[in-house]
């Protein structure tokens, strides 16, 4: 019964994704391509981090290597490309696998924090050397290529690129999922839980770690290749630490325990960046606040939140659950609105131009600020009462909801008391 409904859900999801270009505008289709690529990257990362328990800080290196491998393959043979365009991500896979195997061999000699530091060092070294190696990485304008027509399609429109990306992402996710149910994939869980014991059981732990690392790097390379096919250019800024950091954040926000969790987290955060970055200058602040809130209050990530909601719905029954859900949503909306209002107000108040205007006119020291089409006076009480009210309302609703959810928290508490350490304590040198 369970697996049937999961299959149906997956099929529905695939159908929905396939229908995206027909339902949404071209701009949103492009955003969807970015979301798919981020989802693949996060899922590949989770193979290493969530399943094998090795937190890597420099995974952007393999994404970038895949990207550059692909762009050079596209430019090879005088521009016609080593492979037909639909098969181009294989170049990314091969380069990611090759470099991943080498880097993994060195990195997995250590565990825990030291492993993380080695991956960081490799990525930073690559990032620092890339600008100097112009033949390979093309300087700060990067290397550009052009998609060549193949199989009767010219790959000139966003829709065709979307379907190509969708096909590769679905195939890669399927392969990753099947990998996790093979014995080798299962052994990776053993790596996370107790590497010593695994060694005593006779398994070659270092070889296994290198295998997991290589597979993760290979699929990261495919994600990098897909980005290059979409953008037709690769630039060494892809090795930046912020990309490595964002994939870690996306994975944990989505939830590491569920297979599709990181994909969910990555899609949502990519969409958040796409939608909000044009609306406000302070969107990085909102993103940071979101990260911190998720880390503090949703340790299992969004997938865990959905699981909690499902459990609650079963426990309370739909009739009693619906108002709780509505209250939760209302509380979040109110708190978000209040916070956004205050931040936007402060941002305009402290901007240089406003301060110049304020000091210029001694008679009216605090000119009004336009927000949401309404002029607010900083000196007026109502300007501050509105957000205060929103925040207070949201806070009250939140407290009420927490009391309702208390028993459910206690249910999941036992799991939290003995957490599987995702990074072993310092001093765990192999």
């Amino acid at each position, binding site marked *: 019964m369970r697996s049937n409904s999961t299959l149906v859900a997956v099929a529905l999801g695939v159908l929905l994704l396939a229908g995206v270009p027909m339902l949404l505008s071209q701009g949103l289709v492009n955003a969807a391509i970015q979301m798919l690529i981020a989802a693949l990257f996060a899922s590949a990362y989770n193979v290493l*981090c969530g399943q094998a328990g090795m*937190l890597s800080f420099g995974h952007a290196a393999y994404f970038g290597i895949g990207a550059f491998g692909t762009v050079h393959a596209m430019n090879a043979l005088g521009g016609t490309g080593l492979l037909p365009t639909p098969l181009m991500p294989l170049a990314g896979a091969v380069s990611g696998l090759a470099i991943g195997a080498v880097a993994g061999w*060195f990195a997995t*000699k*250590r565990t825990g*924090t*030291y492993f993380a*530091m*080695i991956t*960081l*060092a*490799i990525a*930073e*070294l690559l990032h*620092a*050397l890339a600008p*100097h*190696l112009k*033949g*390979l990485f093309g300087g700060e304008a990067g290397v550009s290529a052009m998609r060549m027509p193949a199989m009767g399609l010219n790959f000139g429109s966003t829709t065709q690129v979307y379907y190509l990306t969708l096909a590769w992402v679905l195939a890669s996710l399927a392969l990753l999922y099947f990998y996790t149910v093979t014995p080798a994939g299962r052994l990776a869980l053993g790596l996370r839980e107790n590497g010593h014991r695994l060694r005593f059981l006779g398994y070659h732990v270092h070889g296994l770690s290198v295998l997991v690392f290589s597979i993760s790097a290979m699929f990261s390379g495919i994600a990098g290749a897909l980005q290059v096919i979409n953008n037709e250019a690769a630039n060494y800024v892809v090795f930046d*630490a912020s990309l490595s*950091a964002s994939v*870690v*954040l996306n994975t*944990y926000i989505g939830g590491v325990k569920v297979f599709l969790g990181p994909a969910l987290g990555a899609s949502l955060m990519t969409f958040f960046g796409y939608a909000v970055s044009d609306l406000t200058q*302070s969107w*990085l*602040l909102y*993103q*940071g*606040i979101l*990260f*911190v809130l998720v*880390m*503090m209050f949703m*340790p299992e990530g969004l997938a865990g939140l959905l699981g909690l909601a499902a459990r609650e719905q079963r426990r309370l029954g739909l009739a009693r659950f619906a108002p709780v859900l509505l209250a939760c949503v209302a509380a979040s909306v109110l708190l978000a609105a209040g916070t956004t209002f205050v*931040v936007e107000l*402060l*941002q305009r108040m*402290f*901007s*240089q131009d406003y301060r110049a205007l304020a000091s210029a006119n001694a008679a009216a020291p605090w000119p009004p600020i336009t927000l949401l089409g309404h002029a607010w006076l900083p000196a007026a009480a109502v300007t501050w009462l509105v957000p205060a009210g929103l925040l207070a309302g949201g806070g009250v609703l939140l407290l009420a909801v927490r009391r309702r959810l208390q028993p459910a928290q206690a249910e999941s508490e036992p799991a*939290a*008391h003995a*957490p*599987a*350490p*995702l*990074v072993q*304590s*310092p*001093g*765990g*040198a192999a």
Partner: protein
Amino acid sequence: MDTLLVSLLNGIIYGLVLFMVSAGLTLIFGMMGVLNFAHASFYMLGAYFAFALQGVLGFWGALALSPLLVGLVGAVVERFFLRRVHRYGHAHELLLTFGLSFIIAELVKLFFGNFPVNYRIPASLDFAAFRLGSSDYPAYRLLMGGVAVAMFVLIYLLLTRTRVGIVVRSAIYRPRMAEALGHNVPLVFMGVFGVGAALAGLAGAVAGAFYTTNPNMALELGVMVFVVVVVGGLGSLEGAMLASLLIGLITSLAVAVDATLADALALVGARAWAEEVGGLLTLKVSSLAATLPFALMLLILLVRPSGLLGEKA
């Protein structure tokens, strides 16, 4: 000869500045087992608080008060954020500090703007200490170095010779036992985190006047501090000092070296081949000056992961 002396002095002073920032980080790591990504943000906060207070309290007053404020911020972060996430594992703590570094950077940009601010050395300290060859050596640099050395001596004495220090060290090694003996271990944790943050804040207040104070300060110094902590040994104060001096000297002396790998290969007669191959072999050491610390970090991690003076597992 003079150029060499100047480079040596510069390297040592730069290394001492790195030490001021990384001392707190290595102590916090030794205590909590988590790398605090927000540490460089405390450095930035120290500089900005000093800038904001400068108008009211003057340079020395701001220098004294700003680390205390940053220490307070650090204590709040530990008590209300990190403690809550502690039971979910190290990864969550790490990511929380990462998110916090974002928030701090954006808040600084919100209140102080995107451009560098006018936080400068006061005129009373802006003189040359002595002349070396054709250039002056500014006295403020020596002041920075002096503060760093004083910091090192004070912390070392505090940790090894005072009762508080012994309690802190025991809480680091055996927190449960220390708690069983009646010490308030959570308070110790909060205190160490706060003091670590305050040290970074002091570094920011002192160095921000000499280098520029801008919202990207944390990013500029952040990665180098990690390199120092890893090379020196996670948790070791002496290691941090040694590593920062080493990295400071390497960065400073490398700038004067214009040799390349091709020159080295010339010793075996392979120069022409090396120059034909190009790429890595023809890169000058001087243009790689900022990259060498990462190579050092990788080497240390592969050969001796516990760092130069760290505890062997």
